[in-house]
């Protein structure tokens, strides 16, 4: 959805008078900035946009936007946004959530919003930790991670949020990272362009309780070897010298060296945003950065009727069948009688 009422604004026009209260250095700042930029670039007016968040550091986001907003309760933002969007398809509705908010307490609402394809943009700030409650592990923290609530290391495997979103029925799924502001902005723009639910996982550094969680992917030296930036219709090539690629072998992805230089193997993985199967395949690259590169970009994008559209059609079917019915007739119902 794009703004309708008038002048193009500056990013700062989307900034509220409240000073952000995140820790100095927190990755949340960068994301705030990009969102404001994207809204301005897309020509929205502040009163056309609503930010709904749950609870967590990231969920403070709405306070810093000069738009409408709700800072709600832990885990329920997707449900709240659903009610809002269904009644107000004219608004641009964004959900801001954290890895605990979205995947611990809020997991159910998240997958249901994705399944229903509500036309909202869900930004999951994944810092692999509970920031606001000062450092417990989250459903995305890696196995054995030592945190305040796991002094002896955790005992549980993390979720792969992208994979979960794909299997729940999301129609736009992407991953980006706080430090790559250009990539981030591009992804946010596309998420907003997408008609239907958009799920964007954003790796976000919590420099206080989980500093460097994504250093493997942001460190400029390591990055070329540890990341793959997916592009629709293009083969998955990476490496400092762009000398590696992904191939499909017996249904799995494997990293191989491109040799001789420039000659891609026949089974090279070519990304196709419209294929759920391919999206899941490439999303399953989730191992340690030393061994498997981590994909970023748009995994999946497909246009399906949104929940609001389906609901509108449902109403149209009902109206077509029933014709115009007055409230008085409704109250009368099927059978009445007169007492004189």
């Amino acid at each position: 959805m794009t703004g309708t009422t008038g002048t193009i604004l500056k990013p700062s026009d989307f900034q509220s008078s409240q000073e952000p209260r995140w820790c100095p250095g927190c990755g949340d700042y960068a994301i705030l900035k990009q969102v404001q930029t994207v809204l301005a670039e897309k020509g929205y007016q502040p009163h056309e946009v609503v930010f709904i968040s749950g609870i967590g550091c990231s969920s403070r986001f709405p306070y810093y936007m000069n738009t409408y907003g709700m800072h709600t309760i832990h885990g329920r933002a997707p449900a709240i946004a659903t009610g809002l969007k269904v009644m107000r398809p004219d608004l641009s509705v964004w959900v801001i959530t954290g890895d605990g908010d979205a995947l611990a307490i809020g997991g159910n609402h998240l997958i249901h919003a994705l399944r229903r394809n509500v036309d909202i943009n869900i930004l999951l700030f994944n810092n692999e930790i509970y920031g606001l409650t000062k450092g417990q592990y989250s459903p995305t923290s890696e196995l054995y991670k030592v945190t305040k609530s796991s002094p002896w290391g955790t005992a549980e495997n993390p979720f792969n949020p992208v994979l979960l979103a794909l299997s729940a029925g999301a129609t736009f799924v992407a991953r980006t990272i706080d430090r790559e502001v250009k990539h981030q902005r591009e992804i946010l723009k596309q998420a907003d362009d997408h008609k239907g639910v958009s799920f964007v996982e954003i790796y976000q550094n919590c420099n206080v309780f989980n500093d460097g969680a994504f250093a493997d992917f942001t460190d400029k030296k390591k990055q070329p070897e540890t990341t793959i930036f997916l592009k629709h219709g293009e083969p998955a090539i990476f490496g400092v010298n762009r000398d590696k690629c992904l191939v499909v072998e017996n249904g799995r992805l494997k990293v191989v060296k491109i040799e001789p230089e420039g000659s891609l193997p026949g089974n090279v993985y070519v990304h196709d945003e419209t294929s759920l199967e391919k999206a899941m395949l490439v999303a399953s690259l989730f191992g340690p950065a030393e061994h498997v590169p981590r994909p970023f970009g748009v995994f999946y994008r497909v246009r399906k009727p949104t929940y609001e559209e389906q609901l509108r059609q449902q109403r149209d079917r009902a109206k077509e069948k029933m014709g115009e019915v007055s409230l008085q007739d409704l109250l009368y119902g099927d059978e009445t009688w007169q007492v004189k």
Partner: protein
Amino acid sequence: MSQEKPSVTVRFAGDSGDGMQLAGINFSFESALEGHDIATFPDYPAEIRAPRGTLYGVSGFQVRFGREEVLTAGDEVDVLVAMNPAALKRTLHLLKEGGILIADSDAFDAKNLRLAGYDTNPLENDDLKKKYKVLSLPITSLVREALKDSPLSVKLKDRTRNMFVLGLVFWIFSRDLDIAKDLIRRKFANKPEILSANLKVLEAGYYLGETLEIEIPKIKVSKASLPEGRYRTITGNQATALGLITASKLSGLPLYFVSYPITPASDILHDMARYRYMDVVAIQAEDEIAAISSAIGAAYGGAIGVTATSGPGLSLMSEALGLAVMTELPVIVIDVQRAGPSTGMPTKPEQADLLQAMFGRHGEAPLIVLASATPSDNFYMAIEAVRLATTHITPVILLSDLYLANGAEPWIIPDVNNLPKWKPHIWRGNGDYKPYMRDEETLARWWAIPGTEGAQHVVGGLEKEDVTGNVSYDPVNHEKMVRLRLEKVKRVADDIPEQEVTTGVPEGDLVIVGWGSTYGVIRSVVKQLVEQGYSVGHVHIRYLNPFPSNLQEVLGRFKKILVVEMNMGQLAFLLRGTFLMNVYQFNKVQGVPITERELMSEALKLLK
């Protein structure tokens, strides 16, 4: 031979598959149509399709009709239909001495007798025949005989037995078969063979009456003198659904109804989903937390956010209701109470969620609590809930219960044009908007709808600074806000009717106090007591938080106060705690309604 009675109660009882609900609804509607007042009590088993012949599979429908105001479905029944031994076993105790028992003798075979725990066939018991007028008829055979030319399968033929007894009951009350036929015709319009079988069997039952060899009195009940107007029958759940839609029109606000199925509230969802052509949005959420949450989202967006549930769902909504209190948004929760705690007895009525509605949220989180008194009152109380929510900008809980939800009564259909409209407290100004600016009188904050230019703001669960709505940890501000939220709800007392003495004397020896579905039984008992010369009043409270401003004064006019509830004394506790007022209690927590007899005897004890 014919008897004249002020009111009569009939109960249809049989297996879940025997169509007793249909027979009962048909008979009730016809009774209403003939000008009687009615009250009904459907009583079905917890199982979807319990095995045939079992005690727990018995499904019942009780209807009372009469010439006077009919307030309850009756303690006892005049005519009992028992389609099998299990039905007889479960309901015979309800039959008055001298009452009529209609039984399908074909169903009293060895297997069914065993399933019902009978050693011998009770229909052949002489005591039974002495005590009641027993019409033991081979109904199954008679039906098959009547349909011997029908192409239907035996199974489908047997399904029409309910029409046979309906016909017979029509004969007993000299009813007009045509109305029943009309109803049946509409129901089976698309199934001509089933339709014709049903009609045939209905007549067969009716005309059997004429040829009966034993003497069965034909019972006459004069018509009620109901106020003039156009009537329909309505259940509590139907009334709620219609009330909400009406409120949407009266307020000019869009309606967002969202619910997660739960007995006995699901029918509201079903109705609302059907009414999609009325521009209602009706959604089935993934759970009750999502339901209330999305209602909050819709309310933030400028809609009336409504959800309906029962006890377990209300419990799940606790946290989000706190958010609704904090953000001060007009969301409405309809709690159709059932017997608890936990899953409890989902198909049985109870009134034990009152204190939960009052206090079931952490922190100081006051909200408006209403309760409807009769099935059709749900229409008005649903409107009232929406009116108060959208003018005082606060969440409302409306308490209904299973007995109201499923019970039906004749309802005089209001003229939509005569229903009062109101103006929601919506921000339409162009000035400087702050989310916690308030109306001076009501303390309602202004509701600014996203999309309104210049009124961007953020609401949320953190404590906010008065007026500006900025997050605030200031000690004095917090107390101020806590007191404002409380005071706002208290002031609703200025916007609701004063408490009336619903029935009986305005002051005197005893006042019987109730809320919710005990209305009928209390009113009925109080009327009888007053007739007998006692000085008794009935106060029925529909506004539970805040109480009507004169409630204490009204109750104070009586020497004794008896609080009647289907719980362990929740309203009693509220009255004690609020007014330091000594009250007597009558509590029944059995998942069945309080009977007139029980209440009468309690009241008489206090009147001695």
